[in-house]
């Protein structure tokens, strides 16, 4: 196969795996079948077993990644739609975002201190709790690598999605706003998806928190980076 065909095959593989995993999740509504786990796993397995070159994979699929920028802009619409909720709880939401962001950074920093990870990994870890489009923009300020960051962000999302319900039970968290903010701040898109399953309001709050933590992270990343180093 020549390079163009491999590139087209990879684009098709990505689209088919994504939409198939979405369809599967509609039928099999279990957390382990979430598209965020199945789709990347499937694609990674195929790419690794067929020994496809990363450059070939990207020749067409980079157009998908380019859609992250318009998707970031689209976040303006849910913020506008939920302006009444924001006006009602400005303190809870803003301090929630700050707490989540601070804990996310602090926990990553402790993680780096206590484990002995190579610098590419440890620097990429700092922004792991914000949504991918924001994380790949912010990670360079910390000296992280965008691709590794995307992988760590994905893992953080999956972890948050899997551990949230038992944790909320143990910590006796009942209010929907607390669940929403915690999920949005710690597990971004995956957390927001999980929160939508818990309840509509949780989902809305988690999405808002995810967007705000992302924006603050991108704007403040250079400052945080100088503070940490």
């Amino acid at each position, binding site marked *: 196969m020549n390079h163009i065909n491999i590139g087209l095959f990879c684009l098709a593989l990505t689209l088919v795996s994504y939409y198939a995993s979405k369809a599967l999740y509609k039928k099999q509504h279990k957390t382990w079948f979430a598209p965020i786990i199945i789709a990347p796993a499937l694609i990674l397995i195929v790419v690794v077993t067929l020994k496809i070159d990363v450059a070939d994979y990207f020749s067409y699929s980079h157009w998908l*990644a380019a859609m992250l920028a318009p998707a970031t802009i689209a976040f303006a619409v849910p913020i506008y739609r939920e302006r009444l909720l924001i006006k009602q709880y400005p303190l809870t939401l803003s301090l929630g975002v700050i707490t989540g962001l601070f804990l996310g950074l602090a926990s990553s920093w402790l993680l780096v201190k206590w484990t002995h990870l190579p610098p590419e990994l440890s620097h990429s870890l700092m922004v792991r709790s914000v949504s991918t489009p924001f994380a790949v923009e912010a990670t360079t300020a910390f000296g992280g690598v965008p691709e590794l960051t995307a992988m760590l962000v994905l893992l953080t999302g999956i972890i948050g999605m899997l551990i949230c319900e038992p944790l909320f039970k143990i910590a006796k968290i*009942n209010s929907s706003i*607390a669940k929403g903010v915690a999920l949005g701040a710690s597990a971004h898109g995956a957390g927001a998806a999980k929160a939508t399953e818990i309840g509509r309001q949780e989902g809305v709050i988690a999405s808002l928190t995810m967007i705000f933590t992302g924006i603050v992270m991108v704007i403040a990343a250079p400052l945080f980076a100088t503070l940490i180093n």
Partner: protein
Amino acid sequence: MTFFGRLAPSIIKRSALAAIQVCGFCLFAWACQSVATKVSSPIPGSVIGLAILLLLLCLKLVPEKSVNLGASWLIAELLLFFIPPVVGAIKYQPLLANYGVELIAAMLAASTLVLIGTAYTVDKLFKFEHQQNLKRQQKKVNAQVIHLPSTDSTSNLATKEQKAA
């Protein structure tokens, strides 16, 4: 008219509208990113674009329904857009294989801290702000009662006030 006869045009119309709006978002994103790189802005073009769109929506210069379908589609398919960067991490396969277990264990602990810490703080904050909101509403109702003592909806409270006085 058959079921499909009625359904199909609306679906096609919605999809076409969504597609046009998505194209609009792409063009706008491209413009924002070009300007941001040209002036070497420290804030990425996409975040500037977000702020501009939010401002336009708030000023009612852009009606919500003219961006609604496109925005919903872009946000719903977000996972599809970040799969390629994740695949890019294959370049670092040996690194991830060497440190994978340690990394996941550490991330599990860190995420637990973030989830519990944030949820607990917000729970306390919410209870406080909810009380404040209730108090503010109560004050508003009381103020209305004093000005309009005889309206039906507030008559109950008004009599209470008079009794207290």
